[in-house]
């Protein structure tokens, strides 16, 4: 056969004489590819925004914890509970390391209720920490003042509230100097954080930061009795390394913590070090499931589309039996016929693929225009769309094309 452009021209000519049918046939592929492109670009957009959100937690932090942040599968509570608690003294010691800017111990209680007069907010996180909490976690005190060393030293019952708390408890009042209640305890508000937004769908503004010694008064360590609380209820230490010294800081932290826990050389770490990179990996692990599900859905819709193409190609072969006979009589070889029909199915599904790619991009744009989701189209998605649709065309085109190619010319010529 001659150049591929001529064969493709032939295929296009065939579809022009069956416009409606060709369109309906490609519809399956169009829908499949549209969905895949739209969803992939939304996931990509989500990935990008999560990556930037993780960066917004604080830059290049190292987290020292009792439990692993990236563990997959159920953790072993007992083993974790047996490990020594991390303490504010550990943080003080870590702070002295040469590669470390500061180390902040934080103990937190999620899902707490805050009350002010007759108003209350729920699900608030109470963070027991030090004056460096805002520095490490990228909070900015907008009104009032931040915690200072004296507050910690004197176990003052003061706190900085997040913008969400401020908005809900003090809609039109100035919160500074007001007392609010956590259970029976009163906390004087000395500052309000600037709004920070949400992380993985969770508001980062529904919090109150208080000096950790005061936190211990409200939630005494001796009351943390359940195995879950003993495993997960203690301090985590957020370490801010000097810029460019993350690796060095990790080594120093590990060495110091092992010394503080008097671990012998042959004993494994009884603490965990985590970084934001690991946080991103957790996120990716979570979304991978969704990713696989989407690929499965895409595969199903492409198979359905492919079956549609195969069906119509079989109809086409039957209808054009005589044409095949004529072509063979004038010298078309089996390969010529095979190539002609495969080209037709590939062109059909590729056209569907191209339309699907365009619609998918448009759909992603539309969704990001009308919803908070952000879409990001990457070149590899377009390549994937092309690849998938041509693969479907070839795979589902082979059977009808072979059927066409193997027709007996005489019987084909006699076909009415």
């Amino acid at each position, binding site marked *: *056969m*001659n150049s591929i452009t*001529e064969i493709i021209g032939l295929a296009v*000519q*065939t579809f022009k*004489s069956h416009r409606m049918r060709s369109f309906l046939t490609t519809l399956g592929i169009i829908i499949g590819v549209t969905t895949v492109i739209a969803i992939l670009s939304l996931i990509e957009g989500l990935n990008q925004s999560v990556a930037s959100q993780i960066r917004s937690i604080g830059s290049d932090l190292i987290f020292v914890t009792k439990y692993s942040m990236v563990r997959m599968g159920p953790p072993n509570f007992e083993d974790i509970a047996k490990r020594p608690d991390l303490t504010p003294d550990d943080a003080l010691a870590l702070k002295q390391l040469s590669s470390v800017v500061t180390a902040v111990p934080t103990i937190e209680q999620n899902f707490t209720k805050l009350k002010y007069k007759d108003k209350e907010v729920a699900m608030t996180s109470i963070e027991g920490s030090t004056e460096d909490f805002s520095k490490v976690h990228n909070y900015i005190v907008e009104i009032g003042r931040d915690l200072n060393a004296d507050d910690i030293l004197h176990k003052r019952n003061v706190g900085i509230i997040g913008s969400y708390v401020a908005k809900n408890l003090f809609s039109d009042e100035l919160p500074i100097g007001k007392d609010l209640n956590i259970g029976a305890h009163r906390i004087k508000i000395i500052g309000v954080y600037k709004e920070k937004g949400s992380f993985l769908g969770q508001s980062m503004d529904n919090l109150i930061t208080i000096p950790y010694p005061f936190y211990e008064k409200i939630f005494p360590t001796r009351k943390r009795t359940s195995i879950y609380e003993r495993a997960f209820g203690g301090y985590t230490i957020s370490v801010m390394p000097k810029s460019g010294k993350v690796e060095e800081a990790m080594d120093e932290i590990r060495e110091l913590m092992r010394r503080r826990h008097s671990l012998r050389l042959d004993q494994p770490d009884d603490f965990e070090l985590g970084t934001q990179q690991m946080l991103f990996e957790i996120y990716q692990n979570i979304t991978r499931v969704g990713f696989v599900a989407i690929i499965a859905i895409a595969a199903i819709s492409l198979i359905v589309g492919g079956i549609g193409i195969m069906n119509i190609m079989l109809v086409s072969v039957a209808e054009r039996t*005589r*044409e095949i*006979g*004529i*072509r*063979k*009589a*004038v*010298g*078309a*070889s*089996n*390969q*010529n016929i095979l190539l002609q029909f495969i080209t037709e199915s590939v062109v059909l599904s590729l056209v569907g693929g191209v339309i699907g790619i365009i619609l998918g991009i448009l759909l992603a744009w539309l969704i990001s225009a009308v919803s908070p989701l952000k879409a990001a189209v990457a070149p590899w998605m377009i390549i994937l769309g092309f690849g998938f649709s041509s693969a479907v065309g070839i795979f589902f085109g082979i059977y009808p094309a072979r059927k066409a190619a193997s027709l007996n*010319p*005489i019987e084909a*010529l006699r076909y009415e």
Partner: protein
Amino acid sequence: MLCRAIDIHKKYSLGKVEIEALRGVSLEIVENEYLSIMGPSGSGKSTLMHILGCLDTPTKGEYFLEDKKVSDYTDAELARIRNISIGFVFQSFNLLTRLSALENVALPLLYAQVNKKERIERAKEILSKVGLAERMYHRPNELSGGECQRVAIARALVNRPKIVFADEPTGNLDTKTGKEIMELFDRLHAEGNTIVLVTHDQNIANHAKRVIKIIDGRIANGL
């Protein structure tokens, strides 16, 4: 020797019934012959033509085309022989309805790997030769029966075949048009083409220089 068929048999099975279409046909065709194969319907003449035209293979017997055994060829080689050595003209024209007359005529050249420019040139040339220069951009449904058959003849000739088989070429045409088509065949023969007419019509068969009669799958006269 262009074609030599030796004791050709052909059996078909239609469901449970076995039909013996050819029962030992031997014949020879030389270059520039004008031959007709004549016989009533069901006599096996079309089957013979299909075998001679390499569209079909015999169940028994040997067929040599240009002194080469056809049974030795692969499918792809047979396709190539049909493409460059043989031209077919059918009773029902067998044109591709979606293509113009010009494209129909150029079709064998497509499979012969001829480039587009030359395909069009050669198809135009042959169409003017059969008197269709004015109608070559029309599709078959815009052409009369006689015109369609001229297109089919042009298609059969475009690749300069060794031999042209015409199966009841006037069967779908009125008498006057049929006569014109036969005159065209006469002229093509005079120009040096080898032509085999397959027909049940004595008047058509008489155009040929040699007539072979087939009855019940056997040659009833001639060689």
